[in-house]
């Protein structure tokens, strides 16, 4: 008896925990409060056309699985309680029931068929956009690097190059191709649609039409080495006007340092150009044309640095330029500052605190 009460207690506890735990997920399933999620990478509040098709399929399977779950676990608990014989006893020696067994071969097969048909339909519709959607589409080329993202817009000119953050216009279909410069990565913005691997020697694609403006989080989801966890990205879905303005700004080369910061920023530009920086980074309109690290032409306009790891502000930029290895061990960005006191320590040819401040001031002018 004590045992039986324990079992029911456990069942009750499990149900309560499961319901509490699923609150967000279940609400996702019924799609209410779709604009107030508290998990920026939730997979069940998609805000694009393809994402919603995936969600419809997920809901269908979720509810069917839930019915089977309740049925099987309920039967199991019922049997455990109903047929428990602590004192032992004799049971009838039933060997089977062919009719029953055929039934539970056929019924699951039918359930699976119900899942399989829309699944295959969705596989094909996810593969290529419809003719109407592809007319006005915008192409984005994504390249994965250890451990950051590069974005190019081939139709908008060779100069629209950015890193770790990219922009799309709302309501226009984006056709995104992805590949990799080194190892396999996987490109994913959960609130838009599912992921796709970025594979060296191959070009994959996804497409979606963002339905709501806003800032969306994503990150690499294929293990790609030491800093896999810190290979994050942001998508900004803008109004068409904002997007056009952003494109115009990106198309321009770097602005020469002006305004009140001119002194410090001008020094920073010199330090940047004469140091190791141009070996890896490009700043369009200047001699710096390195291809190893992110394009910095408009780095000052990005909200984050180090692939979504740090907010882009004075303090963090200083920290990053001084001692990148402390922030992101094994990233290709070396520790540069003489004041680096964590990570791998200062390099033999380091840059002084005042030079770091100058470089940071310069980078912050690159709006």
């Amino acid at each position, binding site marked *: 008896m004590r045992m039986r009460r324990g079992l029911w207690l456990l069942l009750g506890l499990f149900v309560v925990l*499961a319901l509490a735990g699923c609150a*967000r997920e279940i609400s996702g399933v019924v799609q209410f409060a779709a604009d107030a999620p508290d998990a920026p990478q939730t997979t069940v509040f998609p805000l694009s056309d393809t994402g919603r098709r995936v969600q419809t399929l997920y809901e269908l399977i979720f509810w069917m699985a839930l019915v089977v779950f309740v049925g099987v676990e309920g039967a199991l608990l019922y049997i455990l309680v109903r047929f428990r014989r602590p004192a032992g006893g004799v049971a009838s020696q039933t060997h*089977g029931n062919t009719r029953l*067994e055929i039934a539970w071969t056929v019924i699951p097969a039918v359930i699976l068929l119900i899942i399989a048909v829309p699944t295959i339909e969705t596989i094909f519709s996810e593969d290529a956009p419809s003719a109407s959607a592809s007319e006005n589409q915008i192409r984005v080329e994504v390249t994965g690097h250890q451990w950051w993202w590069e974005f190019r817009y081939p139709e908008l000119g060779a100069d629209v190059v950015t890193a770790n953050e990219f922009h799309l216009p709302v309501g226009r279909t984006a056709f995104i191709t992805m590949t990799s410069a080194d*190892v396999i990565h996987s490109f994913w913005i959960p609130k838009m649609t599912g992921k796709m691997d970025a594979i060296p020697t191959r070009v994959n694609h996804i497409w979606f039409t963002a339905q709501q403006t806003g800032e969306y989080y994503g990150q690499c989801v294929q293990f790609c*080495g030491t800093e896999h966890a810190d290979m994050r990205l942001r998508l900004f879905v803008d109004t068409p006007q904002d997007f056009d303005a952003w494109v115009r700004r990106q198309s321009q080369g770097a602005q020469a340092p002006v305004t009140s910061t001119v002194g410090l920023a001008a020094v920073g530009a010199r330090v940047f150009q004469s140091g190791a920086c141009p070996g890896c980074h490009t700043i369009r309109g200047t001699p710096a044309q390195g291809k190893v690290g992110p394009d910095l032409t408009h780095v000052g306009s990005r909200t984050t640095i180090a692939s979504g790891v740090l907010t882009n502000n004075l303090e963090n930029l200083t920290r990053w330029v001084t001692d990148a290895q402390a922030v992101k061990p094994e990233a290709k960005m070396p520790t540069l500052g003489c004041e680096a006191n964590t990570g791998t320590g200062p390099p033999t040819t380091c840059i002084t605190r005042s030079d770091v401040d100058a470089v940071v001031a310069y980078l912050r002018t690159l709006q």
Partner: protein
Amino acid sequence: MATIAAPVAQRGLLARPTEPTGLWSWLTTVDAKRIGILYGTSAFIFFLIGGLEALMMRSQLAVPNNTLVAPGTFNALFTMHGTTMIFLVVMPMGAAFFNYIVPLQLGARDVAFPRLNAFSYWVFLAGAVLMHLAFVVQTVPDMGWFAYANLTERAFSPNNAVDFWIIGLQVLGVASLAAGFNFLVTIINLRAPGMSLMRLPLFCWTTMITSILMVLAFPVITVALIQLMFDRLFGTNFFNTAANADPILWQHLFWVFAHPEVYILILPAMGIVSEVLPVFSGKPLFGYPFMVYAVASIAFLSFTVWAHHMFVTGLGPVATSFFAASTMLIAVPTGIKIFNWLSTAYGGALRLNTAALMAFGFVGMFTIGGLSGIMHASPPVDTQQHDTYFIVAHFHYVLFGGSMFGLMAGIYYWFPKVTGRLLDEAIGKVHFWLMFIGFNVTFGPMHFLGIDGMPRRIYTYPTGMGWDLWNLVATIGAFTIALSVLAFMVNAFKSLRSGEIAGPDPWDGRTLEWSVSSPPPHYNFAEIPVAAGRDAFWLQKYPTSGGHGTAVAAAHGDGSGHNAEHGEHVHVHLPDPSYWPLAAGGAIFLAGLGVLFYLPLIPVGLFLVIVSVVAWSLEPVNG
């Protein structure tokens, strides 16, 4: 007791060992029961190592932005945790039961190739040790247990961490192949008279099918590992993208092996549950033929679904649809098994002791793993779930909630047969409930983390992602599981010393292992039993119970567990112990060391393998 011919000591270079006890008797043993104990003990030690790795990972992930474990260390932890739990825990625990229980269930005195059996174990140990040498030299594999190309190339993994994994797994593969052939032949050839295939205990069926899977799947990974090793050691370009190699080739080869591997991990547990549930329900297994067909079709289908691990690599819609359909198909035989287990218990007289609870836990938890599996069998849904914690939750419900609960059921069920003593039921219940609750508290929330977009294999995560709470809960769960393991260790230790004496048949068992003493004599059966039907021992005990099968010679054994006494004057010929399986295993270990540290050792090791095998085939037979 049966009189065993006293070994006639042979002299000469190839004389066989004769020590009946002590270290050398274990090192040279070819007794499947002793080899089973070696496998089981080794697997448990690695279970503790893999568990500690898991606890370190969960500690790091308990809170956001944690710096307890460095990024590289974390990557090494999940690589070794996965590799260890799969190849050094669940597989050898299965092998422990194959060795100890299968010959007994078949009514056989040993396996078909006893020395090959010993060889399997020593090679297994060699592979496990080679892989763990990485900890000694502190270059621990950190590329994931799946070792996706081209991250594993020298350009991206310059130190020799990956090599430890390659050579360890390669050597483990040799052990698995040898064991696979051995048990396949054993079950086909050494069945007791009357034990037709459709009278085999279900555990023997799952062992046989598992053996077939091992024989067919391991050659694929062997080839892939050789290619990878050549890329790394000799500069070939199988996976070198700089030379335009396609890194997806590795994924195909790996998963053609690794998906059947999943069934190598789960089928033995399914077999155990199919033994335990009937005994503690007091009923025969419901729908035996359907269960056999289900196991066989799962095994067949397991070779047709590998690319469902690759739905986001851009396979194209046609291939994707095929693999989605084949994956969903596998749910049908799996469902049959679940329903038949439930029907076995339905209408039974359930004795819910620890073994039974573990087995019912298996049914309940495995069902959850199966249902989440259906979700990502649908490729569009998988594009959202792939490589997130939802997958981590899914396969732990299959491999922990499934395999580990099943293996634990086996341990509680057969511990009295192996040791002669029962495990303590009170501590057993504590063990079960801690493990059951800890398991669900750890892996249940991971479903939510995955749905909320938390990727796998990240050493840290920022705040504000909605992942903080469930990560903390999962960590608490992990430590609860650790407590349950402690409870089990206390139980095993206490019961070994002072547990209740079990007697030959403590559970009112149905299969032949319960017809002999506990522990069984080393010749197993003084007189080979005759199987009058399925549940051969049950029919001996209760000839009128209306079992399936003809009542031929049902009373061959005396049915009371004292079969051995009949063998008073029988001369039982048993295989002699041998030095050479150990020597061959050692030689392979040496060749493995050569790959890792000093290439000229490779030919030396391989030469010694040949010497050992020649000596093995020439050594005399005692007696």
